[in-house]
């Protein structure tokens, strides 16, 4: 292993390590597994560095490698990503038109009052189909096209899953806040 290659890799990966670790924490949901996953992903990235096109988005490339490492691990452990029961969703017409955004809710208060653990719990409760695009987009800062490449999904699917992921997250946070007795509805005059 040449010193130059090692230095180049360190320089490329250093600015993204915190975000990558945050991503692994939310995938693996505990620190030892997250560290293990990150190390595995970084090892694969280092081994595959020759395949990285200089001048392209390194962050997207390394997030993609980590995502693949996670999917391989899930498969190896015979744990399939949480399945979405498509028949359990509302009927087509209401699914197209219904939008879960309640203008009566004081969302500012909800987001201010919920604690970090509740946000993490709401995120962890999302099926992988929704959690992965949301993490790659929000935490990883990847463009829709890059998320689509990382997850091998059509662009339109990524967009609809992001939309639904945010809807579900919003609903969960509002429920957590209401359960703790926080007034989530704006007082009407």
């Amino acid at each position: 292993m040449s010193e130059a290659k090692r230095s180049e890799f360190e320089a490329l990966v250093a600015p993204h390590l915190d975000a990558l670790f945050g991503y692994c924490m939310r995938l693996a949901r505990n620190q030892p597994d997250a560290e293990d996953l990150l190390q595995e992903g970084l090892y694969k990235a280092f081994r595959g560095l020759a395949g990285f096109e200089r001048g392209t988005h390194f962050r997207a490339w390394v997030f993609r490698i980590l995502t693949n490492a996670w999917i391989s691990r899930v498969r190896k452990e015979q744990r399939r990503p949480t399945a979405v029961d498509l028949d359990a969703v509302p009927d087509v017409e209401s699914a197209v038109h219904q939008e879960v955004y309640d203008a009566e809710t004081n969302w500012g208060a909800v987001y201010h009052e919920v604690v970090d653990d509740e946000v993490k719990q709401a995120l962890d409760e999302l099926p992988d189909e929704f959690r992965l695009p949301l993490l790659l987009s929000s935490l990883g800062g990847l463009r829709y096209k890059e998320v689509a490449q990382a997850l091998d999904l059509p662009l339109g699917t990524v967009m609809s899953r992001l939309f639904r992921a945010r809807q579900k997250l919003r609903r969960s946070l509002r429920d957590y806040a209401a359960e703790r007795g926080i007034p989530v509805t704006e007082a009407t005059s």
Partner: protein
Amino acid sequence: MNCAEFRDLLSPFLDSELEVDQNVACLKHVELCAPCARRVSDERQLHTRLVDAIQHPLTPEARAGLLAGVFARVEAEDASPPPPAAPHNGRWLLALTLLAALVAGGAWFVRSDPLCLWGCSTHDLLLQAQVRMQEPPRPLDEVEQEIHRTVDYPELVGGRVSGCQTLVSEGCPCHPLVRFTLPDSNEICYVSLPGGHAHVGSERELPDGRRYVVGDGELRFVGWKCGDGSLKVCMPTPCSKLTDSKLFLLAAALRGS
């Protein structure tokens, strides 16, 4: 831009994924519309709240240890001798791999449109359906007697079955096409084909994750793939005045019944 149009673009607007002109239009709308401006503010707060909650900065020691672990693993692997070459002759393995790829490719091709086996295609039959819809319908029982089987079709509440037709290509199995007349006198047809969707339209996904297929170019239809691989299709008559959204809802109703 009105509020509904803005809401359609909200996610890509927040994620800075819009083209410049669309972005400018959204910015103008937000400037003039207080409820949408508030919605944008709420969505941005959600994003910030999410990112803040899931940050996990690594300590300097953890960062150093992580990279050191990666480099140590690489060095250890590079220092160890390569594994001995496999004693078997690789030609058999290559031949078997090629054979498996050939079989898998053939299976995929047939699965994507099983009608190809009979020398026609789903696309051909749907084109033929458009032509048949211009002819007078035949009584359902007459067609059933001719093909010696019952024609299965879903109920369409508010519509009535106005007749039936058959789709036949040389050497191809016969497929009945059921025609429905709607209260507004427009007509649609329903047909179930064993083919896949690869050559006839584009597969799309609803916000709820369910998939459907829409026709491309000369073929106008809304369809859906079933678990058995069949493609159920809802088509308007060539002179129908049905809007795309109405057709979509009719197809959804047929699917749900």
